[in-house]
């Protein structure tokens, strides 16, 4: 270990090409993400509609609860679905998402194992409607949608909830991806700041390598004890082109696209984020800046999806010398 790294940590981070919060906001989000496009990603319902219209696979929407009154009809509304997910349309950080299984006779089981009745579900939906989970506390609506049945490939490394793949896409080109694995601590949620494990994904072939948990490197899943590296993510090229298409869809220059893999339906786009987090760099043991800067220098990004996917792989190839298996 070089003592100079500790004396001047800022310079060392710069050398590694780590993107900081200030630079993310000032150099990428502000110039590349037009404010007017934010509602498209902040409102999950609009994202879903937009994606469905463009033929991008998303978890099917069962129902939308928009007004308090509808909470009373919850019983008939939920009747046909043995399993479903309740989430706020304007949620952030995975908050307010309940994964529910109907156990019959008005009882439901949450992903955490907790048993609830209609009362609790209704109160939760009311909280969503009143804006408890939405940005800025604005009134919101609750989405009830298909519960993804996760591809068994990640069963060995996830605890309850569902793993997803977060890809950062810049100017329509995927630049970095990570697999997010829920843990007991994260309560089945796949958000890193809630305690999920982030695992770096090699953009070239979709293989995972070193992970990170609570800002520290990690090799074995904290709950299941299985290695998180060397997992081959299925449908990898399809996922990459999916993320590129999603980026075009919302016309945002710098987005995080979250994709889940359904056992039957394959990759589904779950949601997008116009302010993607930076922990992905820790999971990948690589900074975003070298890749972003290459793309920033490009006069013109190829319009075809397949060209962009191969460009993404070339850039990853040229900047992945830090990868250590």
């Amino acid at each position, binding site marked *: *270990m070089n003592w100079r*790294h*500790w004396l001047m*940590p*800022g310079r*060392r*981070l*710069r050398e*590694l090409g*780590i993107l*900081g*919060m*200030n*630079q993310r906001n*000032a*150099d990428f989000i502000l*110039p590349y993400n037009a404010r007017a496009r934010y509602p498209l990603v902040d409102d999950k319902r609009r994202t879903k509609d937009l994606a469905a219209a463009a033929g991008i696979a998303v978890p099917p929407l069962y129902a939308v609860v928009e007004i308090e009154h509808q909470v009373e009809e919850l019983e008939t509304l939920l009747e046909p679905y043995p399993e479903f997910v309740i989430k706020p349309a304007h949620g952030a950080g995975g*908050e307010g998402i309940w994964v529910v299984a109907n156990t019959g006779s008005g009882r439901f089981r949450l992903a955490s194992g907790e048993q609830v009745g209609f009362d609790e579900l209704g*109160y939760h939906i*009311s*909280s969503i409607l*009143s*804006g*408890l989970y939405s940005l800025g*506390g604005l009134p919101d609506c609750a989405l009830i949608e298909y519960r993804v049945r996760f591809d068994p490939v990640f069963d060995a490394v996830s605890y309850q909830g569902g793993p997803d793949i977060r890809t950062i896409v810049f100017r329509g080109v995927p630049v970095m991806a990570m697999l997010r694995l829920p843990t007991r601590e994260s309560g089945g949620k796949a958000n890193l700041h*809630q305690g999920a494990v982030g695992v770096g994904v090699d953009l070239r072939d979709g293989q995972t390598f070193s992970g*990170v948990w609570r*800002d*520290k*490197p990690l090799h074995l899943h904290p709950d299941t004890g299985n290695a998180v590296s060397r997992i081959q993510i299925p449908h990898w090229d399809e996922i990459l082109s999916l993320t590129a298409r999603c980026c075009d869809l919302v016309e945002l220059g710098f987005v995080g696209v979250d994709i889940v893999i359904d056992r039957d339906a394959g990759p589904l786009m779950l949601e997008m984020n116009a302010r993607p987090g930076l922990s992905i*760099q*820790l999971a990948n*043991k690589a*900074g975003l800046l070298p890749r972003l800067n290459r793309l920033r220098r490009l006069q013109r990004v190829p319009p075809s999806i397949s060209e962009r996917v191969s460009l993404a792989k070339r850039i990853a190839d040229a900047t992945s010398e*830090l990868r*250590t298996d």
Partner: protein
Amino acid sequence: MHSLHVKVLAVLLVAIGLSFCYYKVTRLGLPLLPTEDAEVWTVEARIEFKARTTIPVKVQLAIPKSPAGYTVVDENFVSSNYGLTTEDDGVHRTAMWTVRRTKGYQVLYYRIHLARDPMAVPAPPQLAPAPATVPELPEVLRPAAQALLDEAKSKSADVVSFSRELLTRFNDADPDANVSLLRQDLQTPHEWVRREIDLLAGGGVPARTIHLLMLRDGVRHGDLTPWIEVYDGHGWQPFNPRSGEAALPKDCVVWQVGEGPVLDVQGGRFVKVEYSVSRHTQDMAVVAEHRARQMGSRIMEFSLFSLPVQTQNVYRVLLLAPIGALLIVILRNVVGVNTFGTFMPVLIALAFRETKLQWGLILFTVVVALGLAIRFYLEYLKLLLVPRLAAVLTIVIMLMAVISLLTHKLGIDRGVSVALFPMVIMAMTIERMSLVWEEFGAREAIQQGFGSLTVAALAFLLMSDKLLGHLVFVFPELLLVILAAMLLLGRYTGYRLTELWRFRAALRG
């Protein structure tokens, strides 16, 4: 591109802010430091007379005209039902009170507040006098005067040294026969000065009387002191009529120049004028303000000092908020501290101004802790968001009232000022803290709460700094400099300090 634009703008703002500030300090003499106090003298002339009932009353009082070395901070005339006019002929200034019909004893006041000011504008050069007319001294005195003049003339080279020589001899403690003769019929100081002027005129030197008011603290029934001024061909030189020393006394004001009477009352008897003097200190900024206004500075038209005092006090506090905001910007974007609500700590810090730090921290902690406890109970009731927030707000206000009452009963005055806490901010803090508590655990919530409180304490310490408070109020243009700093930080793309810790795993690689 954006960065360059921002930098240019910032430089421009700093330049404007600092140059205004520089102008105010160097030209208008506004003090940079808050501790500077100016010496202010309050001089009052009290005129008393008994009015004749038959004729209109007209009172003329000579008053000082821009006294050298002092700034007139304020000047007022107390004259109930009299008409008042002031005249200024370039050398003399007079106040004239007139009334057509009045009776009984009359009292008029003229009051002037003077601040010592080395930078005060010097009086304009005065016109050369007419050649001295040789006065008619009584026959018996002429030889003595001539002898004295000859003696003084033989021992001097020019007007100034001649005058000094003559006056020194005339005031000799052990006078010779000539001087004794010249002095023997003089009774009042005025006659003394009159005789000296006559002698100087006899020697061909133009001289005149001026009336000085000595500034001595606590003088009650003072009078003016006559002094001599001699024209040396370029300007008037003051001489002490009692010693021949060529100077004005320390701490004095030239009240009147020339021979005319200081006070002239028509239609009055038993006329009397008395002067009283007192000294006190006043904030230098206020004095400088008055001076600048006298200089007719346009900038001062837009000074905060021209607002009513109450509004001034509001701005004294408000202008500090940007400093707190800058601190928040630095702590959030350069250090990376998270607080409940962006500017919550600034508002809490403003409330601390009243409660003071120690009590502020205690009261804040008590209110938030009690509020949180009740909030957890509300959670159990499963209330909707807005009604719940309203309930928390109401509870916060009730808590504040209860704390005020309790501390008042216990005789802790500081506790009463809990009422100044921004209650909406408190309610939101409690709400957000309880959410963080539920979602991320007690540790995270207490950590963030403690962080917010630390930032508030820092902001308070910064904002209660006397120097900063003085600077932003007297030089509000310095806010442009703060604005420039904020703009620059708005384009700061370096790492936050906390990110160095967050990405420590990368450093290890």
